[in-house]
């Protein structure tokens, strides 16, 4: 395998990683501040993708599509928070799991009812399509490079938001002590709605961005949701830094494992069984990574730190 191919795969891994970060950041914020496990986060990702596909189809504008994805997911998040989620904060995790599982069923079937069962396609705008030349003669799709850029920009923005702004202070206080926030005179229920909508918007953005390289269809959110859980478990629940590191680790492990393991097995197996054994094992790799991290650090790499 050539070095160029390897670098390409590293970039692919980074791209998957930053998209996972967009999902995981919202999940981990919602858990850190409200103590809620939200299975329906994948539905918000799906809503973002469908909103983008619908608007792109109607207007032809990719930027408008992204705006629509952010707005639709944030709105759906806020509504769900107001109607259902806020009744769950002081419930046990079992109730949270079941209620948000119910939300998945409602969102998935509702979307299927509106858009049908066939996948939609979002196309990459002309100004972002095609490859770019990177140093060393590597040709890499501009769009994927843009995704990496957007993901990293959002990560920086989120760090600034949490460390520099009033909202960030309230979020950090909320992670430390809920009663204290209320005592400080912060409107806690408004804060919760904002945090939830923010997480939803990030998920919706991820859905729209990924929707252009995969198809937009019902059920697209849950595999990503579960990967995001793996990310959070590795990084430590409630930690944005952990979510970023975990997301990059998972993205790189999954992508590189899928390429490198079959190559590795080819050293001592015939080609076809090497590729099947290799890819079967590669599919388990991130879970084994998770198991290994948990074995050493049951609270994740950055667990305990807010």
């Amino acid at each position, binding site marked *: 395998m050539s070095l160029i191919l390897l670098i390409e795969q590293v970039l692919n891994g980074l791209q998957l990683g930053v998209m996972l970060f967009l999902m995981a950041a919202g999940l981990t914020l919602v*858990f850190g501040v409200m103590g809620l*496990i939200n299975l329906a986060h994948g539905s918000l990702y799906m809503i973002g993708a469908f909103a983008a596909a619908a608007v792109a189809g109607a207007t032809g504008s990719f930027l408008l599509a992204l705006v629509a994805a952010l707005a639709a997911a944030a709105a759906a998040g806020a509504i769900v928070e107001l109607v*259902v989620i806020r*009744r769950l904060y002081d419930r046990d*995790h*079992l*109730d949270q*799991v*079941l*209620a948000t*599982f*119910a*939300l*998945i*069923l*409602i969102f*998935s*079937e*509702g979307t*299927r*009812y509106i858009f049908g069962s066939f996948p939609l396609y979002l196309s990459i705008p002309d100004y972002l399509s095609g490859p770019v030349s990177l140093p060393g003669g590597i040709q890499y799709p501009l769009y994927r490079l843009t995704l990496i850029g957007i993901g990293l920009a959002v990560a920086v923005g989120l760090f600034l938001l949490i460390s520099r702004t009033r909202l960030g202070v309230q979020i950090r206080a909320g992670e430390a002590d809920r009663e204290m926030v209320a005592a400080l005179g912060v409107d806690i229920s408004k804060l919760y709605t904002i945090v939830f909508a923010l997480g939803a918007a990030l998920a919706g953005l991820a859905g729209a961005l990924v929707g252009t390289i995969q198809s937009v269809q019902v059920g697209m959110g*849950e*595999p990503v949701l*579960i990967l995001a*859980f*793996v990310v*959070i*478990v590795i990084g430590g*629940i409630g930690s944005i830094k952990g979510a970023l590191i975990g997301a990059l680790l998972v993205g790189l492990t999954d992508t590189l494992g899928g390429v490198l393991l079959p190559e590795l097995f080819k050293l001592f197996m015939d080609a076809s069984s090497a590729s*099947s054994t290799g*890819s*079967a094992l*590669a*599919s*388990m790799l991130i*879970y084994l990574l*998770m*198991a290994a991290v*948990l*074995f050493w650090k*049951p*609270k*994740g790499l950055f667990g305990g730190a807010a």
Partner: protein
Amino acid sequence: MMRERHLNLILLAGLLAIPVWAWITDEPFTITLATRVAILALAGVGLNIALGLGGLVSLGHAAFFGIGGYAMGILASHAQNYDPIFTTPFLFEGTKSMPVIWLTAIVMGGIAALLIGLISLRTSGVYFIMITLAFGQMFYFFSISWPAYGGEDGLSIWVRNGFPGLNTLDPIQFFALCFVLLLLALGLHWTLARSGFGLALNAARQSEARVEAAGLTPFRLRLVAFVISGMVTALAGALFADLNRFVSPTMFAWQMSGEIMVFIILGGVARLCGPVAGAALFITLEHWLGGVSDYWHVFLGALLLLVVLFARGGLIGALVKKEPAHD
């Protein structure tokens, strides 16, 4: 209002009477529906041992359900192709015998639960939920990418496996087998709940510190419960595969884990027959609402949401008065 014990008897009698009536009136489809209820309830009883007694919110029980399914699929497919599973170091052939398949499913389910439990039970709360969900997904992706046993397409078994002395192709006889296994599993749950182990496990759910201070190790209690739970659910998986004569990665899907949990919640958490009531309600809804609308999951979701938000005791909780956990 009635006593839970009486309601349990009514539930089980109903689950027995409906297929018997269908057998008399020659409606094999109803028998198959009842068989589905019995098998899914069995999977739920398995989860209920971890969830109801131990408070372990496992969102990865599809792993055990699927392992049971594949235990059946792999053994039976090798047997129907007259192709041994391996020949070295000893000859290991497939089989079409249900007892052997069940035993294999139980053992494999137990081993998987032991390994998953050893890692995931070191954590608790949300971590435990996410980790069990992730491990379930690991099996799902593995089954898709492992081509030897059908990959994404799954495995079909041409003829239902056999049980000595019975004709398992006869729906009512296969139902009887599943029903008896369900009763045995319920008996196991009931026995565990009344035992010293069950007392300690149930106490560890409520106050971990107290159980430790009494000289018992919550981790060990939970691991044992998790393994037993995985075994029962794996057995249900083997039966489910035999009912459909088909096994595929969807048995490992996270939705399956969610559904097994939904049976328990619809019926009532920590209730002995909660999974029976829940599975019966689920299949009934699927059958009726599925006929009314292709989008019946919306109604299921709404019902589930209402139960969680407003009727936490589930079906059994709504019908019986409060009693001590076990007297």
